[in-house]
């Protein structure tokens, strides 16, 4: 069985997106947010009751390159729900304000979900 460390950065990113219910690729961590837009996305997710798995893209520029190549989305933050790109900070805020984000999360994860925040670090070779 391969461990995370054996896998390329692109494979790790794909794996996180596919295995975690809600992934936020951000600048910094939920404990220390390094960008206003990442903060906006984080707040929108939290207010909508999302369990959040955060990935900091700042440790290496390759993380952002690989992520954008995979998603076709050029900017950070990026939010994925059940493997599907929801969008960046503007979309998350708009969908949170209208209640659509909560609805989407209810549909994807069930309304009685637990709300947790965790951080996943990628292994850089």
């Amino acid at each position, binding site marked *: 069985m391969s461990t995370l460390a054996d896998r390329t950065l692109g494979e790790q990113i794909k794996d996180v997106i596919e295995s975690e219910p809600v992934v936020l690729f951000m600048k910094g961590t939920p404990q220390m947010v390094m960008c206003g*837009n990442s903060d906006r996305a984080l707040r929108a997710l939290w207010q909508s009751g999302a369990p959040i798995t955060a990935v900091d893209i700042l440790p290496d520029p390759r993380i952002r390159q690989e992520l954008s190549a995979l998603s*076709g*989305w*050029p*900017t950070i933050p990026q939010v994925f729900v059940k493997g599907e*790109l*929801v*969008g*960046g*900070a*503007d*979309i998350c805020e*708009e*969908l949170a304000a209208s209640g659509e984000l909560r609805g989407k999360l209810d549909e994807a994860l069930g309304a009685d979900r637990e709300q947790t925040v965790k951080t996943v670090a990628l292994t850089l070779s």
Partner: protein
Amino acid sequence: MASETIRALLEQAFPNASDVQVVDRTGGGDHFHVTVVSSDFVGLPLIDQHRRVNEALAAPLADGTIHELRITTKGAV
């Protein structure tokens, strides 16, 4: 300068737009908020609307001219 380039790219990509706005949020010439109101967006999911804007601005996003981009889109006939 960059604002005008961005506006031109958006107007080129969205010839049907009834409104295109580009705001230099910080005055530094690299943090922008763009607004596009166009019939092209009617019936299109929000993420696809934003994708269209990102595609229109792919060059300045890629070369770092745009350091930060906020997008507002509206579908209007």
